[in-house]
């Protein structure tokens, strides 16, 4: 099959799976997940074939696979939509396909496929376990998710959106995929919509990202009207870029490229949960864990960064924009890392770490470290998916314990309820450890080290404040990761539930293993050439390949020992300090970092509530609806009512009644009545009298005529 055709086909199987499940197989759980996983597999297969074929092409950057069709007629021309696989797309496709497939498989186990239906499970609430009678005594086992099929439908649709976003050759279809993912994110966060927190989180996620989306839409419209095209290949030609850079925008001191870049970047801020639109991502952890892993760690939020990377040639045209991007990224990286220190929910820690790591990528982009950003994007997708799936496995194991003890008020996600899980869940522990070390940037072996090191090296070379910020953030990352590992897996079980935790089924552990391989191995493709000892052993393939996407291939950095040392120190130091501090901590009270402002995320939710949500609700209801519409406009309208009625009354009382009615109306009626009253006497009903009268008249008229004619 031609590669172009194949690219077109990549997003389709999950979409098809969505429709098949929704329309036909939603009652059959096994069939539904078979279809969904099968579809994910087909997409994975297609992606891998495309990826392999892309590797074989010489300088793919100049000659990408592309194909497009007429989509929208716009005046004289057509808007063309199509697919494009250049190096950036190829590597993104690679990690997206892997994570998506793994998470699809993981979901089968996570939602307890094959277990009995729950005793009291409700649709829209997490399953609560089922009682089974086995070997003569009753015990409680996990129960299957009531909306099992629906889950696979939704993630199918999501995968469609993600693949669409990746293979699009233009901003508009990219935006289509972008928003479809937003919808799925909304639906999946609110998957257990019976919980108020999930419901609110879903709305919050959708609305917050939508703020970014509308700006992005503006940016797209702006770009389209200036350049007349949205196709990446056409925008990123030298002439177009130069035009964009030379036309001033309506904002002072900013070229139109700068403004467009900013508008598009706001979209990324929303989607990738950067400051100040980061508030939705931690709450999004209300969704099922595979969702957190896929949407809110590996793919969708990466989609925001991917878009920013995609638009890098445009962003880099204006230095103001670049500084803003770098600032936002670096600030978010640090800021989110500090919050993560004080979180006790295993998934929330990961959520903040995701925000922080995305900030790393954005910061890298802002300082022009294109390849480093891509590199970190990929490695992060692998190890963060791994971490989330691991945490899901932990939670699952804990829920086992909860079901065993029957104490449902024990939160299976609170790390202070865990401890000592290393022996109970060995596969989970080792894979989680790999993920955690990758996240911390544990030297040499993990992929996270190589990508983070490259960012730090670039930052050191280009922008020192960013370097310092990121270094601190990296330190904190290592620290809270170790805190998490220590609290969760090491030491002794702190609760009975933790003591009764269980390793999870193979459907869940297999993806963990696969991903941990990728989380380690993927780093080796991007080892800088001049790195001591290891440099040159494996060629720095990534740099050459991904760098080829840009028109001007980025130069490889000279090796510098300062960033290398820094990253070694912060990673190992953070990990060591974390272990030391938390190995004996058994309750939140002993944790010195449970500071109010960290725990409450710097009160951002509260501030937004007071500054935006409450005033807007008030404005909408009171001002727009009650005062403006009901009061003012309808008030004026209602004045017309009494007004016309006044005129009407006036006419009636002073003209109609006296003149028309009394005089003409009643007058003529009265006259008729009066005359009738008198004349009725003539109506005797006696035929002879009538005859006489008729005769009199006849005679009179006859006489008159006779004499008149005579004379």
């Amino acid at each position: 099959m031609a590669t172009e055709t194949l690219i077109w086909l990549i997003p389709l199987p999950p979409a098809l799976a969505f429709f098949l499940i929704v329309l036909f197989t939603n009652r059959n759980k096994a069939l539904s997940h078979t279809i969904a996983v099968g579809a994910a597999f087909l997409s994975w297969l297609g992606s891998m074939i495309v990826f392999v074929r892309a590797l074989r092409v010489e300088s793919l950057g100049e000659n990408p696979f592309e194909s497009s069709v007429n989509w929208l007629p716009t005046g004289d021309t057509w808007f063309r939509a199509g697919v494009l696989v250049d190096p950036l797309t190829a590597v993104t496709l690679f990690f997206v396909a892997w994570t998506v497939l793994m998470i699809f498989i993981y979901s089968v186990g996570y939602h307890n496929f094959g277990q009995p239906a729950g005793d009291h499970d409700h649709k829209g609430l997490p399953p609560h376990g089922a009682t089974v009678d086995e070997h003569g005594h009753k015990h409680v086992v996990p129960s299957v998710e009531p909306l099992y099929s629906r889950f696979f439908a939704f993630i199918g649709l999501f995968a469609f959106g993600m693949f669409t976003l990746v293979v699009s050759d233009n901003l508009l279809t990219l935006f289509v995929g972008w928003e479809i993912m937003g919808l799925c994110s909304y639906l999946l966060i609110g998957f257990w919509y019976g919980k108020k927190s999930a419901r609110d989180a879903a709305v919050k996620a959708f609305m917050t990202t939508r703020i970014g989306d509308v700006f992005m839409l503006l940016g797209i419209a702006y770009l389209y009207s200036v350049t007349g095209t949205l196709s990446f290949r056409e925008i990123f030609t030298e002439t177009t870029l130069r035009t964009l850079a030379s036309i001033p925008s309506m904002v002072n001191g900013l070229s139109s490229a700068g403004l467009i870049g900013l508008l598009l970047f706001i979209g990324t801020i929303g989607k990738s949960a950067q400051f100040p639109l980061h508030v939705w991502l931690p709450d999004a952890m209300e969704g099922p864990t595979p969702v957190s892993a896929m949407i809110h760690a590996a793919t969708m939020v990466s989609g925001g960064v991917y878009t920013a990377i995609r638009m890098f040639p445009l962003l880099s045209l204006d230095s103001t924009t670049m500084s803003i991007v770098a600032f936002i990224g670096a600030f978010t990286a640090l800021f989110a890392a500090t919050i993560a220190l004080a979180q006790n929910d295993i998934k929330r820690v990961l959520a903040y770490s995701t925000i922080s790591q995305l900030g790393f990528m954005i910061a890298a982009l802002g300082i022009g470290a294109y390849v480093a950003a891509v590199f970190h994007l990929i490695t992060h997708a692998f190890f963060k998916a791994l971490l989330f799936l691991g945490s899901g496995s932990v939670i699952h194991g804990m829920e086992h314990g909860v079901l065993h003890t029957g104490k449902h008020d024990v939160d299976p996600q609170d790390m202070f309820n865990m401890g000592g899980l290393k022996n109970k869940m060995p596969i989970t522990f080792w894979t989680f450890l790999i993920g955690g070390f990758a996240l911390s940037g544990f030297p040499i072996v993990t992929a996270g080290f190589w990508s983070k090191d490259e960012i730090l090296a670039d930052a050191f070379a280009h922008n020192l404040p960013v370097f310092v910020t990121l270094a601190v953030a990296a330190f904190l990352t290592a620290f809270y990761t170790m805190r998490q590992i220590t609290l969760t897996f090491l030491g002794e079980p702190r609760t009975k539930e933790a003591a009764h935790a269980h390793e999870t089924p193979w459907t869940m552990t297999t993806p963990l293993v696969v991903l941990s391989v990728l989380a380690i191995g993927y780093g080796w493709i991007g080892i800088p050439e001049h790195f001591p000892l290891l440099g040159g052993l494996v060629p720095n393939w990534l740099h050459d390949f991904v760098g080829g996407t840009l028109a001007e291939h980025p130069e490889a950095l000279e090796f510098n020992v300062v960033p290398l040392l820094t990253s070694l120190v912060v990673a190992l130091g953070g990990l060591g300090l974390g272990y030391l501090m938390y190995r004996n901590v058994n309750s939140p009270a002993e944790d010195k970092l449970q500071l109010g402002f960290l725990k409450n995320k710097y009160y951002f939710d509260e501030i937004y509530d007071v500054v935006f949500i409450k005033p807007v609700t008030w404005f909408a209801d009171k001002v727009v609806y009650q005062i403006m519409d009901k009061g003012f406009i309808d008030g004026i309208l209602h004045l017309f009512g009494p007004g016309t009625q006044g005129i009407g009354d006036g006419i009636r009382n002073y003209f109609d009644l006296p003149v028309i009615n009394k005089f003409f109306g009643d007058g003529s009626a009265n006259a008729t009545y009066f005359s009738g009253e008198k004349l009725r006497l003539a109506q005797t009903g006696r035929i002879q009298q009538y005859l006489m009268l008729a005769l009199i008249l006849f005679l009179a008229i006859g006489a008159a005529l006779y004499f008149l004619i005579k004379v």
Partner: protein
Amino acid sequence: MTVDQVIFLAVALLTLFAALRVVTTGNIVHAAFWLIAALFGVAVIFALLNASFLAVVQVVVYIGAIAMLFIFAVMLTRKEMRDRGPQLNPNWRFGALLAAVAFGGLLLIVNGWSGVTKTASAVPSDFDAVSALGNALVSPDAYVLPFEVASVLLVAALIGAVYVAFNQK
């Protein structure tokens, strides 16, 4: 005065007297009989006018059929043989006045008409009025249509009369 004139005057006066009795007599049965007399007088007048067919029809149809019908009707609509109370309206005088005025008016018109003094020419000897009348009544060129319409009218009237007078009980 010729014999004709004497006969005319006598018959006319008798007829008028009978007619007056018809409208003034208190007994309705007598009135019916006086009507027969009046109708007979008119038949004589027809004869005087050489309208022999009309005279015969007057006697046969009017006296023989219509007057008899009246007598039957009178007898059918009387509670008792004697009539009580006045037979004329309270305002009969006014009626009389009107009739008199009408008569006066008619006389006035007759008086003012130039042809009033016309005399009758002799009937041609070869003229057979009865056969001419018969031909005229059935000739398509003449009066067959009014004649037939009249017959239809008669049939309709008869059916209607039967229907109206039919005792539904």
